[in-house]
Protein backbone atom coordinates (compact mmCIF):
# COMPACT_ATOMS: atom_id res chain seq x y z
CA UNK A 1 0.00 0.00 0.00
CA UNK A 2 1.59 3.28 -1.05
CA UNK A 3 1.68 6.65 0.68
CA UNK A 4 -0.73 8.18 -1.82
CA UNK A 5 -3.47 5.77 -0.80
CA UNK A 6 -2.74 6.48 2.84
CA UNK A 7 -2.94 10.20 2.11
CA UNK A 8 -6.38 9.79 0.58
CA UNK A 9 -7.40 7.67 3.54
CA UNK A 10 -6.29 10.46 5.85
CA UNK A 11 -8.38 13.01 3.93
CA UNK A 12 -11.41 10.68 3.83
CA UNK A 13 -11.80 11.49 0.16
CA UNK A 14 -10.98 9.91 -3.17
CA UNK A 15 -11.33 6.30 -2.09
CA UNK A 16 -14.30 4.03 -2.60
CA UNK A 17 -15.90 2.49 0.50
CA UNK A 18 -14.33 -0.83 -0.45
CA UNK A 19 -10.89 0.77 -0.78
CA UNK A 20 -11.34 2.43 2.59
CA UNK A 21 -12.20 -0.88 4.17
CA UNK A 22 -9.07 -2.43 2.62
CA UNK A 23 -6.88 0.31 4.06
CA UNK A 24 -8.51 0.01 7.45
CA UNK A 25 -8.02 -3.73 7.43
CA UNK A 26 -4.37 -3.37 6.40
CA UNK A 27 -3.76 -0.83 9.15
CA UNK A 28 -5.34 -3.14 11.69
CA UNK A 29 -3.06 -5.99 10.71
CA UNK A 30 0.24 -4.35 9.81
CA UNK A 31 2.27 -2.58 12.49
CA UNK A 32 4.80 -1.23 9.99
CA UNK A 33 2.02 0.27 7.90
CA UNK A 34 0.50 1.82 10.99
CA UNK A 35 3.83 3.44 11.76
CA UNK A 36 4.14 4.78 8.21
CA UNK A 37 0.59 6.13 8.37
CA UNK A 38 1.34 7.79 11.70
CA UNK A 39 4.35 9.55 10.17
CA UNK A 40 2.20 10.87 7.33
CA UNK A 41 -0.53 12.15 9.61
CA UNK A 42 1.96 13.71 12.01
CA UNK A 43 3.64 15.55 9.19
CA UNK A 44 0.39 16.73 7.67
CA UNK A 45 -0.89 17.85 11.04
CA UNK A 46 1.95 20.33 11.19
CA UNK A 47 0.40 22.14 8.26
CA UNK A 48 -2.90 22.75 10.00
CA UNK A 49 -2.21 26.43 9.98
CA UNK A 50 -5.42 28.39 9.88
CA UNK A 51 -4.49 31.18 12.23
CA UNK A 52 -4.02 34.65 10.89
CA UNK A 53 -2.46 37.89 11.96
CA UNK A 54 -4.69 40.90 12.60
CA UNK A 55 -5.20 42.96 9.49
CA UNK A 56 -3.79 46.47 9.19
CA UNK A 57 -6.44 49.00 10.18
CA UNK A 58 -6.43 50.68 6.78
CA UNK A 59 -7.12 47.40 4.99
CA UNK A 60 -9.95 46.55 7.36
CA UNK A 61 -11.38 50.03 6.80
CA UNK A 62 -11.30 49.46 3.05
CA UNK A 63 -13.28 46.24 3.44
CA UNK A 64 -15.91 47.99 5.56
CA UNK A 65 -15.99 50.88 3.14
CA UNK A 66 -16.60 48.59 0.16
CA UNK A 67 -19.84 47.37 1.71
CA UNK A 68 -20.96 50.91 2.55
CA UNK A 69 -20.25 52.02 -1.01
CA UNK A 70 -22.10 49.04 -2.47
CA UNK A 71 -25.11 49.73 -0.26
CA UNK A 72 -25.08 53.44 -1.14
CA UNK A 73 -24.81 52.70 -4.82
CA UNK A 74 -27.71 50.27 -4.56
CA UNK A 75 -29.86 52.84 -2.80
CA UNK A 76 -29.04 55.44 -5.44
CA UNK A 77 -30.03 53.06 -8.22
CA UNK A 78 -33.28 52.30 -6.48
CA UNK A 79 -34.11 55.94 -5.95
CA UNK A 80 -33.77 56.99 -9.58
CA UNK A 81 -37.05 56.26 -11.23
CA UNK A 82 -37.31 55.86 -14.98
CA UNK A 83 -39.26 58.47 -16.94
CA UNK A 84 -42.85 57.39 -17.32
CA UNK A 85 -42.75 57.85 -21.10
CA UNK A 86 -40.24 55.06 -21.44
CA UNK A 87 -42.88 52.57 -20.48
CA UNK A 88 -45.28 53.05 -23.32
CA UNK A 89 -43.51 50.53 -25.63
CA UNK A 90 -43.73 47.85 -23.03
CA UNK A 91 -47.04 46.14 -22.99
CA UNK A 92 -45.92 44.00 -20.14
CA UNK A 93 -45.05 47.02 -18.06
CA UNK A 94 -48.56 48.34 -18.28
CA UNK A 95 -49.92 44.87 -17.62
CA UNK A 96 -47.93 44.74 -14.41
CA UNK A 97 -49.09 48.21 -13.47
CA UNK A 98 -52.67 47.18 -14.16
CA UNK A 99 -52.22 44.14 -12.00
CA UNK A 100 -50.87 46.35 -9.27
CA UNK A 101 -53.93 48.59 -9.42
CA UNK A 102 -56.13 45.53 -9.50
CA UNK A 103 -54.39 44.03 -6.50
CA UNK A 104 -54.57 47.13 -4.35
CA UNK A 105 -57.97 48.05 -5.71
CA UNK A 106 -59.58 44.73 -4.91
CA UNK A 107 -58.12 44.86 -1.44
CA UNK A 108 -59.41 48.35 -0.79
CA UNK A 109 -62.82 47.61 -2.23
CA UNK A 110 -63.24 44.68 0.10
CA UNK A 111 -61.95 46.71 3.00
CA UNK A 112 -64.45 49.48 2.48
CA UNK A 113 -67.20 46.95 2.91
CA UNK A 114 -65.79 45.35 5.96
CA UNK A 115 -63.55 47.67 7.88
CA UNK A 116 -65.13 50.75 9.36
CA UNK A 117 -62.05 51.81 11.31
CA UNK A 118 -60.29 55.08 10.37
CA UNK A 119 -57.54 54.71 7.76
CA UNK A 120 -54.16 56.23 7.05
CA UNK A 121 -53.71 58.17 3.87
CA UNK A 122 -50.30 57.39 2.42
CA UNK A 123 -50.77 59.44 -0.70
CA UNK A 124 -51.04 56.36 -2.88
CA UNK A 125 -53.65 54.25 -1.24
CA UNK A 126 -55.62 54.53 1.93
CA UNK A 127 -54.41 51.80 4.20
CA UNK A 128 -56.67 50.38 6.83
CA UNK A 129 -56.02 48.24 9.88
CA UNK A 130 -55.32 44.51 9.38
CA UNK A 131 -57.88 43.06 7.05
CA UNK A 132 -60.14 40.08 7.59
CA UNK A 133 -59.51 36.94 5.55
CA UNK A 134 -61.87 37.93 2.70
CA UNK A 135 -59.77 41.02 2.06
CA UNK A 136 -56.56 39.01 2.15
CA UNK A 137 -57.91 36.64 -0.48
CA UNK A 138 -58.72 39.56 -2.74
CA UNK A 139 -55.32 41.06 -2.16
CA UNK A 140 -53.56 37.79 -2.82
CA UNK A 141 -55.47 37.36 -6.05
CA UNK A 142 -54.31 40.77 -7.21
CA UNK A 143 -50.80 39.87 -6.21
CA UNK A 144 -51.12 36.59 -8.05
CA UNK A 145 -51.93 38.43 -11.27
CA UNK A 146 -48.97 40.74 -10.76
CA UNK A 147 -46.59 37.87 -10.12
CA UNK A 148 -47.88 35.80 -13.00
CA UNK A 149 -47.48 38.62 -15.50
CA UNK A 150 -44.01 39.40 -14.21
CA UNK A 151 -42.99 35.76 -14.32
CA UNK A 152 -44.26 35.27 -17.86
CA UNK A 153 -42.47 38.35 -19.08
CA UNK A 154 -39.23 37.47 -17.34
CA UNK A 155 -39.12 34.01 -18.80
CA UNK A 156 -40.56 34.99 -22.17
CA UNK A 157 -38.17 37.58 -23.51
CA UNK A 158 -34.69 39.00 -22.98
CA UNK A 159 -34.63 42.34 -21.23
CA UNK A 160 -31.35 43.52 -22.78
CA UNK A 161 -31.01 47.25 -23.16
CA UNK A 162 -34.10 48.18 -21.20
CA UNK A 163 -33.20 45.91 -18.35
CA UNK A 164 -32.24 48.62 -15.92
CA UNK A 165 -35.39 50.65 -16.46
CA UNK A 166 -37.63 47.61 -16.26
CA UNK A 167 -35.96 46.40 -13.10
CA UNK A 168 -36.35 49.80 -11.47
CA UNK A 169 -40.01 49.90 -12.39
CA UNK A 170 -40.48 46.45 -10.92
CA UNK A 171 -38.76 47.57 -7.73
CA UNK A 172 -41.20 50.42 -7.37
CA UNK A 173 -44.16 48.15 -7.91
CA UNK A 174 -42.74 45.49 -5.67
CA UNK A 175 -42.37 48.00 -2.86
CA UNK A 176 -46.01 48.98 -3.17
CA UNK A 177 -47.06 45.37 -2.89
CA UNK A 178 -44.67 44.85 -0.03
CA UNK A 179 -46.17 47.79 1.84
CA UNK A 180 -49.67 46.59 1.10
CA UNK A 181 -48.75 43.14 2.36
CA UNK A 182 -47.45 44.66 5.58
CA UNK A 183 -50.67 46.56 6.03
CA UNK A 184 -52.66 43.39 5.37
CA UNK A 185 -50.72 41.86 8.20
CA UNK A 186 -49.01 39.43 5.80
CA UNK A 187 -45.55 39.70 7.30
CA UNK A 188 -44.24 36.60 5.57
CA UNK A 189 -45.45 37.79 2.20
CA UNK A 190 -43.89 41.20 2.77
CA UNK A 191 -40.62 39.59 3.71
CA UNK A 192 -40.59 37.46 0.58
CA UNK A 193 -41.35 40.48 -1.61
CA UNK A 194 -38.55 42.36 0.15
CA UNK A 195 -36.20 39.52 -0.70
CA UNK A 196 -36.84 40.10 -4.41
CA UNK A 197 -35.41 43.57 -4.21
CA UNK A 198 -31.68 42.77 -4.18
CA UNK A 199 -32.14 40.65 -7.28
CA UNK A 200 -33.99 43.45 -9.02
CA UNK A 201 -31.40 45.98 -7.88
CA UNK A 202 -28.64 43.86 -9.30
CA UNK A 203 -30.56 43.60 -12.56
CA UNK A 204 -30.74 47.39 -12.60
CA UNK A 205 -26.98 47.73 -12.20
CA UNK A 206 -24.94 49.12 -15.07
CA UNK A 207 -22.01 46.80 -14.57
CA UNK A 208 -23.92 43.54 -14.79
CA UNK A 209 -22.85 41.08 -17.48
CA UNK A 210 -25.34 39.52 -19.88
CA UNK A 211 -24.60 36.13 -18.42
CA UNK A 212 -25.29 37.25 -14.86
CA UNK A 213 -28.39 39.11 -15.97
CA UNK A 214 -29.76 36.04 -17.68
CA UNK A 215 -29.06 33.96 -14.61
CA UNK A 216 -30.79 36.48 -12.37
CA UNK A 217 -33.77 36.74 -14.70
CA UNK A 218 -34.06 32.98 -14.63
CA UNK A 219 -33.76 32.99 -10.85
CA UNK A 220 -36.40 35.66 -10.49
CA UNK A 221 -38.75 33.83 -12.83
CA UNK A 222 -38.22 30.72 -10.77
CA UNK A 223 -38.84 32.53 -7.49
CA UNK A 224 -42.03 34.03 -8.89
CA UNK A 225 -43.17 30.63 -10.04
CA UNK A 226 -42.61 29.17 -6.58
CA UNK A 227 -44.49 32.03 -4.99
CA UNK A 228 -47.33 31.72 -7.47
CA UNK A 229 -47.62 28.03 -6.76
CA UNK A 230 -47.84 28.69 -3.04
CA UNK A 231 -50.33 31.49 -3.48
CA UNK A 232 -52.42 29.39 -5.83
CA UNK A 233 -52.45 26.55 -3.35
CA UNK A 234 -53.55 28.87 -0.52
CA UNK A 235 -56.30 30.44 -2.59
CA UNK A 236 -57.69 27.20 -3.96
CA UNK A 237 -57.80 25.78 -0.44
CA UNK A 238 -59.81 28.78 0.73
CA UNK A 239 -62.02 29.70 -2.18
CA UNK A 240 -61.65 27.29 -5.07
CA UNK A 241 -60.22 28.27 -8.50
CA UNK A 242 -60.30 31.85 -9.75
Amino acid at each position, binding site marked *: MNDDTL*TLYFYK*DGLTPAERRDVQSALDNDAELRERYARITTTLAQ*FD*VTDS*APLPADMLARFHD*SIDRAARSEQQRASKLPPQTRWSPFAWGSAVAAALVLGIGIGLFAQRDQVPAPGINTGIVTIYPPAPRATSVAFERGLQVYLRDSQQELSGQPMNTERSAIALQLIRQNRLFERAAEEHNSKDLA*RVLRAFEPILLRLAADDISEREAEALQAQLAFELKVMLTKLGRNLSEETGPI
Partner: protein
Amino acid sequence: MVAVIERGVLPTQAEFHEAITRRADRWYAACLRITRNPELAEDAVQEALLSAWDKRSQFQQDARLETWIHRIAINAALQLIRKNRPGVFEPLEEDLADHDSSPVTDMENLDLSDLLAKAMRHLSDFERVCFVLKHLEQWRLTEIADELNSNVSRVKQGLFRGVKKLRGSMPDIRSL
Protein backbone atom coordinates in the same frame (compact mmCIF):
# COMPACT_ATOMS: atom_id res chain seq x y z
CA MET B 1 -31.55 27.07 -7.22
CA VAL B 2 -32.95 28.00 -3.84
CA ALA B 3 -36.15 29.96 -3.71
CA VAL B 4 -36.23 33.28 -1.91
CA ILE B 5 -39.58 32.27 -0.52
CA GLU B 6 -37.96 29.49 1.45
CA ARG B 7 -35.39 31.74 3.03
CA GLY B 8 -36.87 34.86 4.42
CA VAL B 9 -34.62 37.58 5.74
CA LEU B 10 -31.57 38.82 3.87
CA PRO B 11 -28.25 39.55 5.57
CA THR B 12 -28.09 43.22 6.43
CA GLN B 13 -25.38 45.80 5.97
CA ALA B 14 -24.71 45.62 9.71
CA GLU B 15 -24.29 41.85 9.53
CA PHE B 16 -21.78 42.25 6.71
CA HIS B 17 -19.80 44.70 8.86
CA GLU B 18 -19.95 42.31 11.77
CA ALA B 19 -18.68 39.46 9.59
CA ILE B 20 -15.83 41.64 8.31
CA THR B 21 -14.81 42.58 11.83
CA ARG B 22 -14.85 38.97 12.94
CA ARG B 23 -13.43 37.15 9.95
CA ALA B 24 -11.75 39.40 7.39
CA ASP B 25 -8.33 38.38 8.72
CA ARG B 26 -9.09 34.74 7.97
CA TRP B 27 -10.46 35.48 4.52
CA TYR B 28 -7.34 37.45 3.74
CA ALA B 29 -5.03 34.74 5.10
CA ALA B 30 -6.82 32.08 3.06
CA CYS B 31 -6.57 34.18 -0.09
CA LEU B 32 -2.91 34.83 0.62
CA ARG B 33 -2.25 31.10 0.81
CA ILE B 34 -3.83 30.74 -2.59
CA THR B 35 -2.26 33.73 -4.33
CA ARG B 36 0.99 34.24 -2.39
CA ASN B 37 0.53 37.89 -3.24
CA PRO B 38 -0.73 40.43 -0.66
CA GLU B 39 -2.27 42.76 -3.25
CA LEU B 40 -4.11 39.95 -5.00
CA ALA B 41 -5.29 38.60 -1.66
CA GLU B 42 -6.74 41.97 -0.70
CA ASP B 43 -8.35 42.32 -4.11
CA ALA B 44 -9.88 38.88 -3.73
CA VAL B 45 -11.46 39.78 -0.40
CA GLN B 46 -12.75 43.07 -1.83
CA GLU B 47 -14.29 41.30 -4.80
CA ALA B 48 -15.77 38.64 -2.58
CA LEU B 49 -17.44 41.23 -0.38
CA LEU B 50 -18.97 43.06 -3.31
CA SER B 51 -20.06 39.83 -4.93
CA ALA B 52 -21.59 38.58 -1.69
CA TRP B 53 -23.44 41.86 -1.23
CA ASP B 54 -24.83 41.75 -4.77
CA LYS B 55 -25.82 38.12 -4.46
CA ARG B 56 -27.06 38.18 -0.88
CA SER B 57 -30.47 37.03 -2.03
CA GLN B 58 -28.79 33.69 -2.73
CA PHE B 59 -27.49 33.39 0.81
CA GLN B 60 -29.12 30.55 2.68
CA GLN B 61 -30.16 31.30 6.21
CA ASP B 62 -28.94 27.99 7.54
CA ALA B 63 -25.39 28.85 6.48
CA ARG B 64 -23.10 31.29 8.25
CA LEU B 65 -22.49 34.56 6.47
CA GLU B 66 -18.75 34.54 7.15
CA THR B 67 -18.41 30.98 5.88
CA TRP B 68 -20.29 31.88 2.73
CA ILE B 69 -18.05 34.92 2.13
CA HIS B 70 -14.96 32.82 2.87
CA ARG B 71 -15.91 30.45 0.07
CA ILE B 72 -16.58 33.32 -2.33
CA ALA B 73 -13.21 34.84 -1.40
CA ILE B 74 -11.38 31.61 -2.20
CA ASN B 75 -13.09 31.49 -5.58
CA ALA B 76 -12.19 35.11 -6.20
CA ALA B 77 -8.56 34.41 -5.33
CA LEU B 78 -8.46 31.49 -7.74
CA GLN B 79 -9.98 33.61 -10.47
CA LEU B 80 -7.49 36.39 -9.88
CA ILE B 81 -4.44 34.18 -10.21
CA ARG B 82 -5.96 32.52 -13.24
CA LYS B 83 -6.47 35.95 -14.75
CA ASN B 84 -3.00 37.19 -13.83
CA ARG B 85 -1.21 34.04 -14.86
CA PRO B 86 -3.16 32.21 -17.56
CA GLY B 87 -2.49 28.49 -17.60
CA VAL B 88 -1.30 28.55 -14.01
CA PHE B 89 -3.47 25.59 -13.09
CA GLU B 90 -2.34 23.42 -15.95
CA PRO B 91 -0.66 20.60 -14.04
CA LEU B 92 2.81 19.69 -15.18
CA GLU B 93 3.36 16.21 -16.46
CA GLU B 94 6.68 16.05 -14.75
CA ASP B 95 7.02 16.46 -11.08
CA LEU B 96 8.71 19.81 -11.27
CA ALA B 97 9.17 22.13 -8.38
CA ASP B 98 8.26 25.74 -8.94
CA HIS B 99 11.42 27.69 -8.30
CA ASP B 100 9.92 30.89 -9.59
CA SER B 101 10.43 33.31 -6.77
CA SER B 102 7.68 35.70 -7.79
CA PRO B 103 5.53 37.30 -6.65
CA VAL B 104 6.51 37.07 -3.01
CA THR B 105 9.93 35.76 -2.29
CA ASP B 106 10.90 36.97 1.10
CA MET B 107 7.65 35.97 2.80
CA GLU B 108 8.25 38.68 5.34
CA ASN B 109 4.77 40.04 4.95
CA LEU B 110 3.01 36.72 5.05
CA ASP B 111 0.91 35.89 8.03
CA LEU B 112 1.40 32.18 7.57
CA SER B 113 3.66 30.39 9.92
CA ASP B 114 7.24 30.20 8.72
CA LEU B 115 6.93 26.47 8.59
CA LEU B 116 4.11 26.38 6.12
CA ALA B 117 5.30 29.38 4.13
CA LYS B 118 8.79 28.03 3.60
CA ALA B 119 7.58 24.56 2.74
CA MET B 120 5.02 25.94 0.33
CA ARG B 121 7.74 27.64 -1.70
CA HIS B 122 8.77 24.28 -3.02
CA LEU B 123 5.37 23.61 -4.54
CA SER B 124 4.17 24.56 -7.99
CA ASP B 125 1.04 26.73 -8.17
CA PHE B 126 -1.09 23.74 -9.06
CA GLU B 127 0.30 21.63 -6.24
CA ARG B 128 -0.02 24.44 -3.74
CA VAL B 129 -3.62 25.19 -4.66
CA CYS B 130 -4.56 21.51 -4.58
CA PHE B 131 -2.97 21.16 -1.15
CA VAL B 132 -4.44 24.35 0.30
CA LEU B 133 -7.94 23.62 -0.94
CA LYS B 134 -7.81 20.04 0.27
CA HIS B 135 -5.87 20.30 3.48
CA LEU B 136 -6.75 23.75 4.81
CA GLU B 137 -10.06 24.54 3.14
CA GLN B 138 -11.25 20.92 3.21
CA TRP B 139 -12.80 20.96 -0.23
CA ARG B 140 -13.78 17.69 -1.86
CA LEU B 141 -11.47 16.53 -4.63
CA THR B 142 -14.34 16.83 -7.08
CA GLU B 143 -14.92 20.45 -6.05
CA ILE B 144 -11.25 21.27 -6.57
CA ALA B 145 -11.28 19.60 -9.97
CA ASP B 146 -14.36 21.59 -10.98
CA GLU B 147 -12.95 24.87 -9.78
CA LEU B 148 -9.62 24.33 -11.54
CA ASN B 149 -11.24 23.03 -14.71
CA SER B 150 -9.32 19.84 -14.19
CA ASN B 151 -10.25 16.30 -13.24
CA VAL B 152 -10.05 14.34 -10.02
CA SER B 153 -7.16 12.22 -11.21
CA ARG B 154 -5.00 15.26 -11.92
CA VAL B 155 -5.97 16.90 -8.68
CA LYS B 156 -4.98 13.76 -6.82
CA GLN B 157 -1.61 13.79 -8.55
CA GLY B 158 -1.16 17.46 -7.67
CA LEU B 159 -2.04 16.74 -4.08
CA PHE B 160 0.27 13.72 -3.87
CA ARG B 161 3.19 15.68 -5.30
CA GLY B 162 2.45 18.55 -2.95
CA VAL B 163 2.31 16.32 0.09
CA LYS B 164 5.48 14.52 -0.97
CA LYS B 165 7.38 17.78 -1.35
CA LEU B 166 6.06 19.13 1.92
CA ARG B 167 7.10 15.98 3.74
CA GLY B 168 10.48 16.12 2.06
CA SER B 169 10.99 19.71 3.10
CA MET B 170 10.27 19.09 6.76
CA PRO B 171 13.80 18.12 7.88
CA ASP B 172 15.20 21.33 6.43
CA ILE B 173 12.54 23.38 8.08
CA ARG B 174 13.02 21.72 11.45
CA SER B 175 16.67 22.66 11.34
CA LEU B 176 15.92 26.37 10.76
